[in-house]
């Protein structure tokens, strides 16, 4: 007991001291991401997008004379550990904290960053993230409160559905999407005739497809994680569910298409970010990413990449590495490809940290995602 106490205490103290050492001619921007566990795909894509950006920037000497130092910390896809990691990095006074991607982890950790007045660039899409009066959180993709109205419009005008069946995964991602979608449907007088919740990791969707079929809706909105989306699509195909299946980014992603093995054809939906966008800058980025990492990145890779350039743009605007000034300047800023080509698409950050950008309507045709329409930024006709 004595020996253990001694060794343990010494180690804790030692670890604390090690944290002190930090280069002075670099800016400390730690990345706290889901590098293992259920969120590993999202986390690693986000990380690689950021790494590409950091390498490009550092190759040109960094920004404002300092190179970026971006150590990686793994949350293991758990909110408690995410909080722990944020706690740890705050001891070393970061400039900006990068990540996490998982909404639950973001919500847990952002309280700490807010208290320390350090801006946090997150990948999470839950609406709640920007609804908690936190002036230090900034998104890299649409919050659900922005993406859902776009989908809702599509359901009303594109599909012309009068009734919708809704199937969602019961975690913070799925529930947030479901709540926001329901609100948008209600305000457009479209009836929700089935509201089916499913579990993360669920393998058997026969009961859920039965329920959805029985509801006889004009369309089905599917808001599940990747593997479950694939399983659902296969079961739906099997049982002959013939109404339009609509989704948001994930459902039309390449991973789902591959896992669903043909059952994804015909799926339609809104896509926030995609490497298939008909925009040259995006296509070129996709090429660079593929060359560097040997795989095709998903929307999380784009989030990470553009996020770093957002930080660069804001920092160059304020002219110094001041976390508080960053937060103030970032609200309301519009970063355009004219000034910063690697932002890829023009984006505006509002006073809550939400992002406003073009997005796309897509369809899965012959095993690939096809962009059918480009939707303008909200507020732009």
């Amino acid at each position, binding site marked *: 007991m004595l020996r253990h106490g001694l060794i343990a205490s010494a180690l804790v*103290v030692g670890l604390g001291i090690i944290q002190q050492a930090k280069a002075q001619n670099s800016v400390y921007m730690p990345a706290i991401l889901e590098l293992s566990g259920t969120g590993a795909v999202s986390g690693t894509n986000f990380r690689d997008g950021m790494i590409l950006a950091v390498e490009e920037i550092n190759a040109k000497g960094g920004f404002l004379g300092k190179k970026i130092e971006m150590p990686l910390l793994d949350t293991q896809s758990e909110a408690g550990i995410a909080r722990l990691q944020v706690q740890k990095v705050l001891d070393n006074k970061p400039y900006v904290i990068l990540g996490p991607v998982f909404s639950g982890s973001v919500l847990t950790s952002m309280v700490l960053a807010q208290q320390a007045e350090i801006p946090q660039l997150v990948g999470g899409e839950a609406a709640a993230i920007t609804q908690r009066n936190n002036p230090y959180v900034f998104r890299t993709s649409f919050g659900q409160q922005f993406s859902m109205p776009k989908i809702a419009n599509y359901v009303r005008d594109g599909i012309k559905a009068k009734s919708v069946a809704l199937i969602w995964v019961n975690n913070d991602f799925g529930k947030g999407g479901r709540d926001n979608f329901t609100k948008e449907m209600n305000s457009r007088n479209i009836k929700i005739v089935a509201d089916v919740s499913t579990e993360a990791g669920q393998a058997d969707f026969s009961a859920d497809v039965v329920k959805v079929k029985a509801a006889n809706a004009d369309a089905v909105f599917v808001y599940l994680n990747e593997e479950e989306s694939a399983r659902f699509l296969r079961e739906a195909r099997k049982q002959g569910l013939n109404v339009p299946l609509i989704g948001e980014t994930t459902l039309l992603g390449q991973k789902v298409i591959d896992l669903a093995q043909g059952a994804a054809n015909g799926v339609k939906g809104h896509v926030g970010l995609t490497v298939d966008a008909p925009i040259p800058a995006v296509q070129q980025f996709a090429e660079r990413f593929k060359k560097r990492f040997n795989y095709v990145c998903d929307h999380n890779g784009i989030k990470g990449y553009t996020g770093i350039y957002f930080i660069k743009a804001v920092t160059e605007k304020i002219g110094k590495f001041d976390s508080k000034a960053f937060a103030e300047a970032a609200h309301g800023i519009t970063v355009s490809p004219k000034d910063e080509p690697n932002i890829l698409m023009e984006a505006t950050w509002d006073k809550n940290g939400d992002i406003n950008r073009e997005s796309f309507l897509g369809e899965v045709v012959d095993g690939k995602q096809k962009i059918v329409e480009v939707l303008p930024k909200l507020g732009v006709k």
Partner: protein
Amino acid sequence: MNRLAAAAIVVATAFAIVVPFFLKPFGIYLLSLWAVLTIAAIGLNLTLGYAGQVSLAQGAFIGIGAYTTALLTQAGVPYALAFVAAGALSFAIGWLLGYPALRVQHHYLAFVTLAFTTLVFLVLRNEEWLTGGIYGISGIMRPVFFGWSTAKPLDFYFLCLGVLIALSLATWWMVRSPWGRAFVALRENPVRALSLGLDTRRYTLMVFAIGSSLGGLSGALFAPLVQFLEPASFGLNRSFDLLLMVIVGGSGYFFGPFVGALVSVLLPEWTRIAEGYYLLVYAALVMVLMPLCPAGVIGLLERVLKALNRRPGTAASARVVEQ
């Protein structure tokens, strides 16, 4: 031997009081987490180590205690009252759960508690009106006692340490009492204990309920420590973690939980170099430890000390008798 143990305890306590002053907030947070989890581990140690019952519900009881405390304090109830309420509620639920479940043989309680933990998780997640559902409860404030705010890391740590010491003393007294000795009899041979006139069911039930209430009290500290609650923190993974803690530390030994919790909290930091391999190392550690020394780290220390204490001539031929 006893003097050595007493000296060790004094030194360790001194460390626990002094070292935090040299640590950054993160280090203090880790120590606070250690203290809080040790309380839960002590509870599980009572159930597992002293009364010989496998419980996989300790994670759920931490959750029950944490949510109770958070909801009550956010409704204006003073923290001390919420703390007591958390413990009392956990005790009551433990009693109700144990009453029918302990009628059956040993290994069944493991499955009943497994089912219970999953059910508690489902309730915490689905009943949004009460628990905040999947989004959980955020913005939990640290308690204030007569003007002394525990908002700063060091202050809160001393609150946790104080509660840990108080509960440890209470448990120590209980285990040493005649009542406590009956628990040990239960573990060794329930049928014999029964034949000697012990109401085994009553005792086992009491132990399980007390162990559960310690889980609840741990939760009452967990809520203001982490300041954010979500259902996923209190599921089977937490219960397994606590079980492994008690085993690695040495189940049935009084200081087992302290050591086990320390290993569990510090191991992710020690294996930082191999990011994400922490659980693999932890599991491998347990698997290797179990056949070598099922009595855990404390048991190992005991064996080593006993071997050292023997006179040189007999050391080689002496076999240390296990618990």
